[in-house]
């Protein structure tokens, strides 16, 4: 019995981690976060459903199109909800991204509809028997996809031109600008990548759950808690915290009952942050004045 709980926990944890990596990416590059991450996840699921089910596109076309459209959404969020405020030293981007998320949720409600829909996948019928329980292919694919994305992100940051530019912006945006790096473009790319991560999470979770306009709200909130728990400046820390949070949720429910899940999980977050204010794997940020 513990196997299914562990795999479920890892799956959920990977989803939190994917969303939280989006928070990490934009924070690392621009010291801003996109509070519409949960809504971007919902947009990914809704767009995927609309293209693949409503309009009957083949999956090989619908899924990449969804990710591209979500990347464009990330660019729009950065250009209109973050940059105008951040460039003037204002923190109003915080409220602007929250408002943007609400706008997306409501737009989805009016266009997609108010009822949840099932985004069936043939992969859910492929089952792996584990003793007296079973797992479907999507459940197995979710942690693998999460780990794959984290590894790819690590590789991109260490081995590619874009990664080097990202690193330069992370370390010193002013010096990066003087070296000819277009920091605004790098920041925009980070936002695009973060919404792609969110969309991927939405597409992966949709076959196991249902697709509806407010599916991203709680996910976004938990992912932000995960980002803070892991130490938002540390990619590895954020990913590990996501997995940890998902596992703890599943195990607390298994051993103590669902009444204690939120209570114990968030109490744990508070205790950890009280002991390590910069998160489990975060480091203190020194600012020279």
């Amino acid at each position: 019995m513990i196997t299914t709980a562990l795999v479920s926990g890892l799956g959920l944890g990977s989803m939190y981690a994917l969303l939280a990596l989006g928070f990490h990416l934009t924070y690392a590059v621009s010291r801003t976060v996109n509070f519409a991450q949960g809504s971007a996840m919902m947009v990914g699921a809704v767009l995927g459903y609309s293209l693949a089910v409503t309009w009957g596109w083949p999956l090989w076309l619908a899924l990449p199109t969804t990710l591209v459209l979500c990347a464009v959404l990330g660019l729009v969020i950065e250009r209109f909800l973050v940059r105008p405020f951040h460039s003037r030293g204002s923190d109003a981007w915080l409220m602007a991204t929250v408002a943007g998320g609400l706008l997306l949720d409501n737009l989805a409600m009016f266009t997609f509809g108010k009822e949840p829909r099932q985004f069936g996948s043939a992969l859910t019928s492929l089952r792996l028997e584990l003793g007296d329980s079973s797992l479907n292919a999507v459940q197995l694919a979710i942690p693998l996809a999460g780990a794959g994305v984290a590894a790819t992100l690590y590789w991109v940051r260490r081995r590619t031109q874009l990664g080097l530019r990202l690193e330069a912006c992370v370390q010193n945006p002013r010096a990066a600008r003087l070296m000819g790096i277009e920091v605004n473009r790098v920041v925009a790319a980070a936002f695009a990548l973060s919404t792609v991560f969110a969309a991927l999470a939405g597409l992966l979770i949709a076959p196991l759950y249902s697709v509806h306009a407010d599916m991203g709200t709680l996910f976004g909130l938990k992912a932000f808690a995960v980002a803070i728990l892991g130490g938002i400046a540390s990619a590895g820390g954020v990913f590990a915290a996501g997995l940890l949070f998902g596992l703890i949720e599943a195990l607390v429910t298994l051993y103590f009952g669902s009444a204690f899940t939120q209570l114990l999980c968030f109490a744990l977050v508070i205790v950890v942050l009280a002991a390590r204010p910069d998160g489990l794997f975060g480091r203190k940020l020194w600012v020279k004045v």
Partner: protein
Amino acid sequence: MFTRSLLRRWLPCAALSLACCTGFVQAAEPIKVGLVAALSGQSAKSGEALTRGLTLAIDEINAQGGLLGRPVELVRRDDESNPAKGMLAARELIQREKVSVLFGGLDTPVSLAIVPLANQLKTPFMGIWAAGTKITENGAKDNYVFRVSAVDEQVDEALVAYGLRQGMKQPGLILANNPWGESNLAGLNAALARRDMAQAPAERFEDSDLDMVPQLTRLKNAGVDTLLLVGNVGPSAQVVKGLQQMGWKVPVVSHWGPAGGRFGELAGPDAGRVHFIQTFVFGTHNSARGDALLAALKQRYPQVKTLADVTPAVGIANAYDAMHLVGLAIDKAQDTQGAKVRDGFYAITDYAGLIKHYQQPFSADRHDALGPDDYVFSRFDGDTIVPVKP
């Protein structure tokens, strides 16, 4: 001289015409009834069903000249399944829209939030879906809350009885973590205690829970052989998916939450294993009134083509009968004032409705028109709700 004669002759005529016109305007002013229900979100389909049932009854009433010579008009507000929003919407409908009677929706927490307001403002509040026992048995000295729907305590009794008929030895409860779930937890355990059975192991879930496997695993480990489920559409579907994942073929006997939306689609091929309670199910063979209502539904809503399009029928049927009972109460009261309408409910002696033939449906100490004898067990067959053969 001429002017004075003209005034003397024509002024009374003008005054009379004005009075007639005013009277006519007053007569034409509609009697408003309000609906506060989930019109969006996971339970949106329930709000749509309630709207359809009320609208069809109002169409029939208006076709026969309305109530007290005035047409009836429905005003709707979306509570988004949120008690705070529901209470605000109810206040707006009572105080601003001046509705004579307020109808409630699917969610017990929302209805429980509206009950004190309805009693305080002396506005009859008619429950047409939410089944929380405390909605009508709210302890108020002046109780303005009525219901044409199931009642948790009686449903719990029916669920346990049904489970036992199916061979249940060790029930396990899986419930929504909200007042509706708590109301049923007490009711189910009381029903078990009446049969000298031990308190059942219970697990709760949030509406947003993605994975029910841990809760179900705990119940399986406790030796449960029948699940008694209380939850709305989304989480109920997640329970079925969790069972699929675990490969646990346990019978599921449920409150009527699954009927509130696209359960057949959301839960997948195993949706039919959940047997749930209803007060009414449309079938291929209905009563004359049922067939007439089905025809009216198809005519009024062209998107209704098959029986799958009239789910959840319980919402349509409860709302339809409740609106006619409200009409009778206003007719008995000959007024739309809250206290008089309430007494009007008590004065109803007989009404041949869709769900049943109501005889003295309400009295000062009984505000629920339906009882356990009016419940039927049903299940999803694809997207259609069909009765389970006894």
